């Protein structure tokens, strides 16, 4: 069945489809449709009680008193074994960074949605992609990573949210769904899925009372000499497996392209429109659209043609640009076009830039 949803609603519906049994959030524009949708649609949200037994996915919805409380409620719910999610936008995500670090350090699964807006500071409520560094470079303290997934359309927002819950549980890591205000607000038809959850939801490490077993402890504090290093090495081993197995990207016209545009999320949609105009004028332009921003897909950048050039497009002043340069390793030219603070590079600007490069 197809229904018309905004990106924000699709993320919320995807979470419910994935068996999200706990949501806590705090209002902030432009993601308010997520918290409203969860309040309305989470089963038994009015009772505020989650019944996890017998496969009943009834949920808990809490409007928290702050983003700090929201992310720490997600920590608690995840520690208790629930599939837990929160959502916010840039300034709220900044407030959550300490909690995200604790979630990563305690090896808890969680889904965190960031519908980015302009910054720094209070910024504005226009779409932006300027939280890329924060999302992909462990925005809180310590050596950790989130899996970061960047949908480019409403259907993908719905699908990747479900994927996010599975990845979070499979690897016991926090997963971020990184969108922007345009994706959150625009409406498109969404094919609802009937697929089942692919990973086991049995969590032998979770807190539910130590009946018939030794007590479980959820912690990220390791004071004994060497213990914290051991805990970090365990995380790094997990990250290495994720880097190997969980990169995702879309490639278009890579075999004949002379200039390859590199863009994610909303920016990639504008890039596709520019490409279709340029190709109908006979220009050989391709696209790499990273879907996982961490782990960043390196593989599509190993193009043999030594004259190929890359043009990175972002709604920021050059953040993913650094990952593209690392992937290209100085072997090819990398150009950049970016705007931020609510500015979005237009098709025309992209076409003009491509013509200069060609």
């Amino acid at each position, binding site marked *: 069945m197809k229904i018309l949803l905004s990106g924000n609603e699709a993320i919320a519906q995807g979470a419910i489809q994935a068996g999200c049994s706990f949501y806590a959030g705090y209002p902030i524009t432009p993601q308010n449709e997520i918290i409203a949708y969860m309040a309305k649609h989470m089963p038994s949200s009015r009772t505020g009680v989650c019944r996890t037994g017998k496969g009943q996915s009834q949920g808990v919805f809490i409007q*928290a008193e*702050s983003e700090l409380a929201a992310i*720490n409620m997600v*920590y608690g719910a995840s520690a208790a074994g629930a599939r837990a999610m929160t959502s916010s936008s840039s300034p709220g995500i900044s407030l959550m960074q300490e909690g995200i670090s604790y979630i990563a350090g305690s090896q808890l699964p969680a889904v965190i949605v960031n519908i980015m807006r302009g910054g720094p500071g209070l910024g504005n409520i226009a779409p932006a992609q300027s939280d890329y560094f924060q999302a992909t470079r462990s925005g809180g303290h310590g050596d950790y990573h989130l899996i970061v997934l960047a949908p480019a359309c409403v259907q993908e927002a719905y699908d990747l949210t479900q994927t996010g819950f599975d990845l979070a549980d499979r690897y016991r890591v926090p997963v971020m769904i990184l969108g922007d205000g345009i994706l959150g607000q625009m409406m498109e038809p969404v094919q609802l899925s009937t697929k089942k959850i692919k990973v086991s939801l049995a969590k032998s490490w979770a807190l539910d*009372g130590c009946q018939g077993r030794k007590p479980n402890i959820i912690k990220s504090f390791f004071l004994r000499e060497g213990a914290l290093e051991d805990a970090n090495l365990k995380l790094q081993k997990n990250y290495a497996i994720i880097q190997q197995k969980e990169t995702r990207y879309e490639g278009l016209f890579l075999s004949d392209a002379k200039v390859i545009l590199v863009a994610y999320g909303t920016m990639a949609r504008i890039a596709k429109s520019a490409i279709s105009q340029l190709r109908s004028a006979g220009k050989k332009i391709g696209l790499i659209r990273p879907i996982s921003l961490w782990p960043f897909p390196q593989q599509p950048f190993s193009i043999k043609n030594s004259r190929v050039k890359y043009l990175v497009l972002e709604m920021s002043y050059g953040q993913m640009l650094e990952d593209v340069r690392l992937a290209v390793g100085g072997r090819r030219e990398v150009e950049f076009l970016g705007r931020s603070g609510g500015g979005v590079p237009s098709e025309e600007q992209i076409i003009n830039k491509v013509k200069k490069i060609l």
Partner: protein
Amino acid sequence: MEKIFKRCQSLYDVPTHYCPGCGHGIAHRLVAEVVDELDIREKTIGIAPVGCAVVAYDYWNFDCSEAAHGRALAVATAIKRVHPQNVVFTYQGDGDLAAIGTNETIHAANRGENLSVVFINNAVYGMTGGQLAPTTLLGQKTSTSIEGREKKAHGYPLKISEMLALLPGVCYIERVSLQSPPEVLKAKRAIKQAFENQINNLGFSLVEILSPCPTYWGLSPKESLDWIRDVMQKEFPLGRIK
């Protein structure tokens, strides 16, 4: 000969890391005795704070979680909502509950979360080396109030228990002390009441425990107990607040 005093099942047989004369060991034991007496060890989930008691789970023999500094009641709220059949409590110091975590404390109380809170008030930051706490008394010297707490510079000792008693979601608040064996027994009765309230779905319960910190009060263990009786209890009177 009959054994009349033994280790609780809810406490591990391990050496303590607390300073001589510290109140945490007594308070940990009181919680463990209550958990044993109510026969809820296999249903209990404790939340350890950031502060001296961060490794409370090294002493308690039941499920536990850490929480970031001040966020214990946000973590506890979620755990209790996910597992309403379990008994969930937080154990927090004055800096954790009444400074950095004031917001979480007030809102969990105001939502009437069905939780039990063990609030250790020793009027000082212990783990970080004896700085001014929200509950530090006027005139009390700390490493960040060298001449003593002064109302114009540092404000007044925060009576968070009296503040929380105003909220309709709060079921029970009592202030107790570890100053003498009779007071310790009263403290245990209050903790038991707070746990029983949760088991009976009555809502938010908090026990504030005036607890000695000889190390950062610059007093001997005996002098610390006397100071609680002669000075601290005058600022923080004992008894049922709600």
